[in-house]
């Protein structure tokens, strides 16, 4: 059985994107998604529930598995929720779990994905430092589908190329994190 990455995300959609990216890159790993409960709160919810989420996973995971925490960190968000971001960082350090930060938002990763950009008929590029790329991204997807934004329209087009040269350093770091995680090494060894 493949090892498992237990990925804690702010929102379930983020986990679905990561799952699709791993599939697109043919990385053989089981991904178990965990997200804080409740509708609102983003990073606040994550900061409040993170220790419990990690403790729950640690109670059932096997030794080969690993845990990673993924969260957004655009500049505006980071200033406004400085305390929460620091708390997440501190918990990850204390609990020795990988922290993956999407700069600025996960949508920046998507705008760097070749397959998705082909579908959207735009040029893939590094949007890591673009302010709130999600608005632009969601508008593009809505225009393409003629419907309100839904991540399900996006997933089939992802080819996982967002970590390539001149694309998103943030995606590259995230993928490297996952690739270098102990459970991935167990899989490839």
């Amino acid at each position: 059985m493949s090892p498992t990455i237990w990925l804690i995300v702010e929102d379930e959609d983020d986990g679905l994107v990561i799952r699709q990216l791993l599939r697109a890159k043919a990385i053989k790993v089981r991904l178990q998604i965990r997200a804080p409960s409740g509708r609102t709160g983003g990073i606040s919810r994550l900061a409040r529930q993170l220790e419990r989420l990690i403790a729950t996973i640690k109670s059932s995971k096997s030794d080969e598995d690993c845990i990673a925490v993924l969260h957004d960190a655009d500049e505006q968000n980071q200033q406004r929720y400085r305390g929460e971001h620091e708390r997440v960082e501190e918990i990850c350090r204390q609990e020795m779990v990988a922290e993956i930060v999407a700069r600025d938002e996960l949508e920046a990763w998507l705008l760097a994905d070749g397959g998705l950009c082909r579908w959207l008929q735009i040029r893939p590029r590094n949007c890591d430092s673009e302010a709130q790329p999600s608005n632009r991204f969601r508008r593009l997807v809505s225009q393409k589908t003629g419907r309100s934004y839904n991540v399900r329209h996006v997933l089939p087009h992802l080819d996982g190329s967002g970590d390539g040269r001149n694309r998103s350093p943030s995606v590259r770091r995230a993928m490297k994190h996952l690739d270098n995680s102990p459970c991935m090494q167990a899989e490839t060894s």
Partner: protein
Amino acid sequence: MLTRLRFKNWRSLRDVTIDNLTPLTVFIGANSSGKTNIVDALSFLRRMVQQNNPQAVYFQGERDRVRTIGADKNDPLELEFSFKPVNAERPLTYTLIMQPGNKLIRFFERLIDGDGQVVLQASDGQGYTMSEVVGGVKEDVQLTNALVFASFQRAVVSPQGEEAYIERRGQMYSFVSKRWQILRKNFMPPTSVPIDEYHDPYSIERSGRNVPTMLDFMQKTNRAVYDELQSDMRWLLNHVDNLEVETDERETRYDIVEKVLQGQKGPTTSTGTARILAMLTAYYALDLRYPNQPGLLVIEEPDMAVHPALLKRLVELFREYVNREGYPRQIMVTTHNPQFLNWFEPEEVRVVERDEDGDTSVHEIPTYIKGIWLDSGEYGLGDVWMTRSLGGVPE
């Protein structure tokens, strides 16, 4: 009370055992995880016993849909439950085995006592023999009536005259056929039924169709029980003043008299109100006959169409029902609703999941969940469920 359930080759339940059942149990899981398959198995068993003709029940459109897809063609389908009769120290275990043959299914049944001793085993078909094992001595009794559940209805007295076993068989038959009340997920009682339709006044139909008949019968035969039902209805639904049931030359109907209408009947009954009424009717029908005998109430998605602010009261009422002194009752429900789940205790929950092969598994909530999430009082089980930490969520 049911203490254990086991299913083999029943739809997605290829080999599933559910142990340590509590008086109140909630099954949670994603859509199509197998919750309804559990309820349908109980319903199937009940119909087998009630109709006393397993072949007929099996062939009433069930044949091609009940066996697990991909199950070996010679592998039997088995439904088993352990049941603790009143005042018994250990449960009896009943197994119904359906063995596929060339064209026919053969049915076998087995009843085992708490010591592992076979109390009774029987099969259908020609030359039907029922074996009675009492005190280590096997007695074969030939029966002319070749129906498998005849064994439960006939008092077959062994030469030793073991009354205790006969009593156990009677309890088992009565428990399954008369004391299981099952409501399927889309149950919705009508406000009236024509009087020329026959309906059982004691046992609720899965759709809730016979609620008007049951209420009419309850009102006429046991006013105290009917009043208790009305009292619970008022507790759950503040707008209800009382419930009026009447039969004329055409139909039996119920009406809700609303407080705000100063004693007048409401012109319509909402879906939630009607469903709550069906649940209470199913429960209180168990008090009409042999109220001190065990009763089982199975309700799929009782929270459907019920306001979230009422869910706490509903669960508290269920808990009150199963804890009533002298009224051994058990309630099993299913849900998709985290707000409903918030009011349950971890040991009352069973998580239903399907694996990559499509097979269902059922597991308990790990004990560490309590310490990590629940003890602080900040989160309920439903909140934890939504973090995906319990399983039983869509992928």
